[in-house]
């Protein structure tokens, strides 16, 4: 198992380099212009100078090499400096965003709290709702509960958040006035009262996102349970007189969780990707909104860095999912 993990880790390095090159080259083809948002009152020759100040004129491979060095060599040094108070990165050029002229990683770090609060929490809430629904629907297949569960989760899956978001805002913020429609990213939780404020502002975005998670995970849970419920070992367990609760909740559930756990692990990178639409609707301004504004402003260093961080997370969690699979299911052996 250990050798498998180590081998996969080494294999992922060339994969990541390849991905970074692929993303970079894709971005080079972009027709967008970082100066497109500057008003028409600024003359073209001034825009040309501004572009030159951003280093746009350099050949793509030079830009790519610079980015590689900045991301893999200088940024880790900044991190070390930050942790140990050293000064390795002093005076070295970091990855700079074209929009803000500030280091990309600083902004990313700034955005992580609200992304984790909202998107991460919604993932947990979604899973907590989805598991019981999935288990019970499978146990009572084709019952009213199963049918209505399928119906509701499917509607949840098919209604896009750009509709559910404003709908919740109209109901709970405009009509009832209970919840804020705009998320305050500067809010700090210090005591019970401020926690309550934080809770109120998170309810709606978390629920909108959890709806999507619930729909997917409960489908997986249900089908995995169904596969196991008809297995011979279940019949054996019942035959030897185990109580129904023990059969379902211990024997079947444990075996059914194997694929579900991997599915859950595979979904984790998406948390860090943020939720572009929901963040936009509730003004959460997390990683998703950061990527969107960077894309529209043709802020290539920002887009490049963000997509690459996602790629690292996806590769990492793919690996974790595979390892988990092996740990949970002793029948699977990697060699």
């Amino acid at each position, binding site marked *: 198992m250990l050798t498998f993990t180590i081998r996969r880790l080494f294999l992922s390095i060339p994969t990541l380099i390849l991905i970074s090159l692929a993303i970079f080259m894709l971005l080079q083809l972009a027709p967008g212009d970082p100066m497109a948002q500057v008003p028409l009152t600024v003359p073209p020759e001034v825009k040309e100078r501004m572009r030159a100040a951003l280093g746009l004129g350099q050949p793509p491979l030079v830009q790519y090499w610079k980015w590689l060095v900045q991301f893999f060599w200088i940024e880790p040094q900044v991190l070390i400096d930050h942790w140990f108070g050293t000064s390795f990165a002093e005076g070295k050029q970091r990855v700079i965003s074209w929009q803000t002229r500030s280091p990309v990683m600083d902004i990313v770090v700034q955005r992580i709290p609200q992304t984790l609060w909202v998107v991460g929490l919604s993932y947990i809430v979604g899973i907590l709702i989805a598991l019981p629904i999935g288990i019970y629907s499978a146990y009572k297949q084709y019952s009213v509960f199963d049918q209505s569960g399928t119906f509701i989760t499917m509607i949840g899956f098919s209604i896009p958040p750009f509709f559910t978001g404003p709908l919740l805002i109209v109901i709970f913020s405009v009509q009832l006035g209970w919840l804020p429609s705009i998320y305050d990213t500067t809010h700090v939780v210090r005591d019970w009262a401020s926690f309550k404020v934080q809770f109120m502002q998170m309810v709606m975005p978390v629920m909108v996102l959890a709806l999507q998670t619930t729909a997917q995970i409960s489908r997986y849970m249900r089908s995995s349970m169904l596969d196991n419920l008809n297995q011979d070992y279940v019949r054996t367990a019942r035959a030897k007189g185990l109580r129904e609760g023990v059969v379902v909740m211990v024997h079947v559930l444990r075996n059914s969780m194997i694929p579900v756990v991997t599915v859950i692990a595979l979904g984790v990178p998406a948390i860090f990707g943020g939720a572009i639409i929901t963040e936009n609707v509730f003004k959460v301004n997390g990683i998703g909104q950061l990527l*969107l504004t960077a894309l529209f402003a043709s802020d290539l260093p920002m*887009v490049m860095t*963000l997509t690459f961080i996602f790629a690292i997370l996806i590769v990492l969690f793919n690996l974790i999912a595979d390892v988990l699979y092996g740990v949970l299911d002793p029948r699977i052996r990697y060699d």
Partner: protein
Amino acid sequence: MTDQALDPYAALQDKEPPKAPRSQWKDVWDQFKRHKGALFGGGFLMFITLAVILGPYVWQVDPQKLDIRNKDMRPIYVALWDGSAKVGWFRPLGTDNLGRCIMANLIAGGRASMAVGWAAMLLALIIGTTIGVLAGYFKKLDFWLMRFTDLVLSLPILPLLLVAVTLFREPLRQNFGPEGGMFILIVTVVGLTSWMQTARIVRGDILALKEREFILAARSIGTTSGKIIRRHLLPNVISPIMVSATLGLATAIITESALSFLGVGFPSDFPTWGKLLADAVQRMEQYPERVVLPGILISLTVLGVNYLGDGLRDALDPRIRGR
């Protein structure tokens, strides 16, 4: 002469005339029929597909025709409880803020959404199945194809989708027109980023099937690889393929609507269900029907597709069939 030769065996013959052998597909259909949800789902999908294909010939109103005098009309059913509402049979589902017929827009939007869904699904299906079968059957290709699958799996999809749309929109637009270019782009992007699951599942199943006796038998009588794949392997993996196909169709429709909302989807004068919904959100209090109608259509389609997938899986899996 042969008759006579066979005569001694006459006693072994059945008294009754032989029944036609039950074909596999009849079994499948019988099982499928028993799944009410699947019947409904398939029926609805067929209905919607036909409606959006034939709709424009029946309801001949140009969806883009502006008619300022008849703007903001309500659907005809509003007259049931609100006698003063601005309604009319010539615009049965009302008009939008510039007087465009909502019914015509829903039909045109459905055409686009369904076309995107079907095309992206077929593309993903073809790529996924091909790669899965090749990787599972030919040992030499397995390693490389699966590493490639991993690579694509590790690309962040939605960000890349946005990047790809901003990148290739203009060149494609020039070559295929605004709608055609966008259609190709969305279909390709959704298709190219959603085949990996199919490929993985198909490969796993093929790997297991390959070691079974019937394949060994087929190979020992000299069946070529191509024939083994077509005759013996593909029919056995059709059930996972069907399931991922149905999910693919739903995902494509939803992805398109998300892109439209972010303003990077089809051009603004080209309706799709997702875009009709996105455009109507700001007036949902005054004109709820404008969000509800496309919303219901998207939901029912996704629901229908999902039930159809459930039913097909049950019907196509011989182990579940007859249960």
